[in-house]
């Protein structure tokens, strides 16, 4: 099956600064993909490359099997909600829907009107006077009503209060039921945990890890053991993070098969733990973290 997004050696430079470095990904369709990383990691750059707002400096990207924005048909296949869910402040809600219908051949106006009524927006209200949550719902409606196969959303819930955030994610998940693939970015793992089934961790312009969330959780564990020199790890284990005190070693490892090793206490990790381990590794540039000083009793 054609991947939703496929990249190979994808690189984007702004002058001398590298915003995205040698990114190779293959994301299947039918998923809700969380793109997570700290601010400035390159998330927006990757999303803008996917929707065709930017062109690569090197490498390739294809979206649903086509070059981004290569044709009007491709533009119709991909819905995009930019950061801070921008709308035209001077235009009414109804104007936005008319505009959407005007520029999108596949526009589903009954879907758009139903959604606007469902979330309680007044068609006559000017978009500039909407609350953050209402504005996000309007932007989502515009992206959904063009009936895309893929929805790309850049930090869609970052500025929303908890209730608006929940309502937004409910609406987004309802469109996933209809078979739409979704890629959304966030710098908060908590936003993604329930809604995503696929994760891409982007730190310092590079993809650190990507995969099915369930698989990532089953392949990563925290190992704790009393510190001793020459500690041997079973083959097939890859150390993601290594912290040592004077008496204890704490590792986060990725492994290809389940392990039982009496030398180590093995703990489950949640998604945030896994993401943080990769972030810590990336920020130390692959070098070992400085040894932490243990608590002296």
């Amino acid at each position, binding site marked *: 099956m054609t991947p939703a997004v496929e990249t190979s050696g994808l690189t984007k430079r702004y002058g001398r600064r590298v915003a995205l470095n040698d990114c190779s990904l293959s994301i299947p369709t039918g998923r809700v993909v969380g793109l997570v990383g700290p601010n400035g990691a390159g998330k927006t750059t990757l999303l803008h490359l996917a929707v065709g707002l930017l062109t690569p400096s090197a490498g390739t990207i294809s979206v649903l099997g086509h070059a981004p924005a290569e044709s009007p048909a491709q533009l119709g296949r991909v819905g995009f909600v930019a950061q801070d869910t921008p709308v035209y402040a001077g235009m009414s809600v109804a104007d936005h829907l008319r505009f959407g219908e005007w520029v999108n051949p596949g526009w589903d106006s009954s879907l758009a009107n139903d959604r606007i009524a469902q979330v309680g927006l007044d068609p006559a209200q000017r978009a500039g006077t909407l609350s953050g949550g209402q504005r996000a719902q309007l932007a989502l409606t515009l992206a959904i009503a063009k009936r895309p196969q893929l929805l790309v959303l850049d930090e869609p819930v970052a500025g929303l209060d908890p209730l608006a955030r929940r309502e937004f994610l409910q609406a987004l998940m*309802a469109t996933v*039921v209809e078979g739409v693939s979704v890629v959304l970015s966030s710098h908060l793992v908590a936003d993604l945990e329930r809604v*995503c089934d696929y994760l891409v961790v982007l730190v310092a312009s590079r993809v650190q890890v990507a995969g099915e969330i369930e698989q990532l959780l089953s392949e990563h564990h925290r190992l704790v053991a009393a510190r001793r020199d020459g500690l041997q790890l079973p083959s097939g284990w890859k150390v993601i993070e290594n912290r040592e005190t004077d008496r204890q070693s704490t590792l986060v490892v990725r492994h290809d098969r389940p392990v039982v090793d009496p030398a180590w206490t093995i703990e489950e990790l949640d998604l945030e733990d896994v993401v943080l381990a990769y972030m810590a590794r990336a920020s130390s540039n692959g070098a070992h973290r400085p040894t932490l000083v243990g608590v002296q009793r």
Partner: protein
Amino acid sequence: MIEFHLDARSGVSPYQQIVRQVRSGLRLGLLREGDQLPTVKEVVGLLAINPNTVLKAYKELEHAGLVAPRPGIGTFVTATLGDGAFAAHGPLRQDLMRWLAKARRAGLDDESIDALFQDAFRSSSERGIA
């Protein structure tokens, strides 16, 4: 119709929580043969979770022979769990409530009550095996 809820701090994955809630509904007689489970769309709309999570939970319940999908309509309960002796549940629950009230009056907190119950439960099961 039952309504699912999720406990974010339980450490149990959302899909497992849905499976457990259906199983406990079957055990307590809240769900009976022929009852319809909420549709995927309803669960997603309520909990704001990934639809695949709900599908996975329903698949597992289907494999366990507890529910079956009717295409285009929804997912329905096809079996009961436990002994079906729901009539006995009421009086037993009342006894348990009285016992819980007694334990609280004796100064036990929730954790102590739970520990005491689990301990008694284990020793009674062990005696059952012996």
